[in-house]
């Protein structure tokens, strides 16, 4: 570290932050390039959420009274789309390198793997947001959902924090896939249970009690509650307030991030000790 000696502490921190930003930018950029290199990937991002919304629409048909109910449906579908993209694509972010044969090159770079993964996850979650926006557009244009929000700033805040919590969850999922080939199994089999557990379409309170702790451990459960409280007039869900939901979500998001970074360190150490990530 002698070479760093000439730098003032301030410069060091700034250098480090710049370096993180540089890696994040590079990672987001590459992921987007890989995404657009195969434009067919747009299909699941447009068609799949569209179909989900359609199924839900047909199911809700006849039971709906007023646009608030439709907005409820559209918000739920949007979150389902975001969830799907986050879980599926993020878990595959570093797995892609394993598959593509770039794992060694990635591991050999002088930056922690978690930064690279974070860049990928951010892009994937962003993709999920586009998903949600697309569903909202379908709702507004096709199903004529009214978009009168109860509290727009609170809605915006809750959406942003939910986005962050989804990204953090995606990062955690990424480590699972790194730790084990079974990661694919975990993420695949989690998709629908997670839709259920976070109350995307119906309140979690309907679920059998054994399911509830799982539901409460998922930060987006609280995010969806907060979003609905901020968007829908007279919404009754969990017996919590908007701010209570937000606090729990933020705390859980921090827990995800902490756990993810901890696991990344372990994974990298393990890879060095065993000489490979390939043999999990």
């Amino acid at each position, binding site marked *: *570290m002698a*070479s760093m000696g000439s730098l003032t502490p301030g410069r060091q921190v700034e250098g480090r932050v710049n*370096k993180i930003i*540089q*890696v994040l*930018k*590079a*990672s987001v*950029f*590459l992921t987007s*390039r*890989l995404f657009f*290199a*195969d434009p067919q990937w747009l299909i699941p991002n447009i068609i799949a959420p569209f179909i989900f919304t359609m199924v839900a629409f047909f199911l809700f048909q006849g039971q709906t009274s007023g646009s608030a109910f439709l907005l409820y449906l559209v918000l739920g579908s949007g979150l389902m789309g975001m969830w799907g993209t986050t879980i599926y694509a993020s878990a595959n972010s570093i797995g892609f390198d394993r598959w*593509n*044969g*770039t794992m*060694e*090159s*990635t*591991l*050999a*770079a*002088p*930056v922690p793997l978690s930064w*690279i993964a974070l860049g990928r996850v951010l892009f994937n979650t962003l993709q999920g947001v586009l998903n949600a926006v697309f569903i909202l557009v379908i709702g507004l244009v096709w199903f004529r959902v009214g978009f009168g929000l109860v509290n727009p700033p609170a809605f915006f805040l809750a959406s942003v924090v939910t986005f962050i919590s989804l990204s953090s969850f995606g990062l955690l999922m990424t480590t699972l896939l790194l730790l084990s080939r079974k990661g694919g199994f975990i993420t695949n089999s989690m998709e629908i249970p997670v839709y259920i557990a976070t109350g995307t379409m119906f309140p979690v309170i309907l679920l059998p009690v054994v399911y509830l702790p799982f539901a409460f451990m998922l930060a987006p459960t609280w995010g969806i509650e907060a979003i609905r409280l901020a968007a829908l007039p007279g919404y009754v869900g969990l017996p919590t307030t908007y701010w209570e939901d937000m606090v729990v979500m933020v705390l859980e998001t921090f827990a995800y991030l902490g756990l993810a970074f901890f696991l990344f360190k372990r994974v990298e150490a393990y*890879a*060095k*000790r*065993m*000489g490979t990530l390939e043999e999990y």
Partner: protein
Amino acid sequence: MQVLQTSREAATQKAAISVQGLTREYVTRNFFGGVSRTTMALSGIDFQVGYGELFGLIGPNGAGKTTTIKILTTLLTPTGGDAKILGLDVRKDLYEIRRRIGIVFGGERGLYNRVSAFDNLRYFSDLYGVDPAVARKRIPELLSVVGLTDRAQEKVEKYSRGMKQRLHIAKALVHDPELIFLDEPTIGLDPGGARDIRNMVRELKAQGKTILLTTHYMFEAEELCQRIAVISKGKIVALDTPSELKNMVRDISVIELRTYGATMEYVEALRRLPNVVRVVADLDSEQQSIRVQTPLGADLLPMVAAALPAGAKMIDRTIKEPTLEDAYLRLVEE
């Protein structure tokens, strides 16, 4: 003792790579976490590579080459011994080492095929923390050095093997490393592609870079390297200049045969002849090439001809000086 210690430290500081008593064992664990098998991949190797040196590491598959490279590039921790890269400890100074070394992986691994060469280089330059202003200038330069300027915007999947390998080299140079590891850089390339790569390696050497090269091709090692370490079963069995290594087999000469219709039986018959040290045969093609190592030289020729079975033909036979390959075979087989 004190003096020895000091001189050793001095040597360590002078060397770009310094390896002392390096060991690595792999432990395979069973389901319950108990040790089921322990494999010794490296059992105590020592060598040093000076600044600006082009150093070769050769050995059969599974001898420990890849393990050594992985340890030296900080991808794997050793289980014993020490390794210093540019005076830095491979166990502790990971990121500092990684910033200052470049790695070229052989074969198809290591590139993003669905994006362009330019995007690959830009991505890795960012991962290595290269100042964007510097990268903007350096990437086109590198692309021109490796002759990919015209196709820099094309997806890598459209490239030939040779082009991919040249891009690999550019990728390893994007952060201007002092020390470069080339892990079988010419594997699977056609002769022209391999020659391009070798010329680039020479060019890097001329620029004063320190290079560690592993290869399966003996002529390549002989052509490029100043010193070569031969590694076999996790140990370094010889370390010297190519000419000194060849001296080890000065006592023998080589009869090179080209035959038509020869089989494994003929090879076995040759092996049974007196004074035959070793027979290496390539029987796969229509014409077989067989190398017989013997101290007798031309005196063995009548016996070699006599052993040829009926129906087989001798097309050509020549007496040759032993090559690095002959030395290598002796070293790794003993």
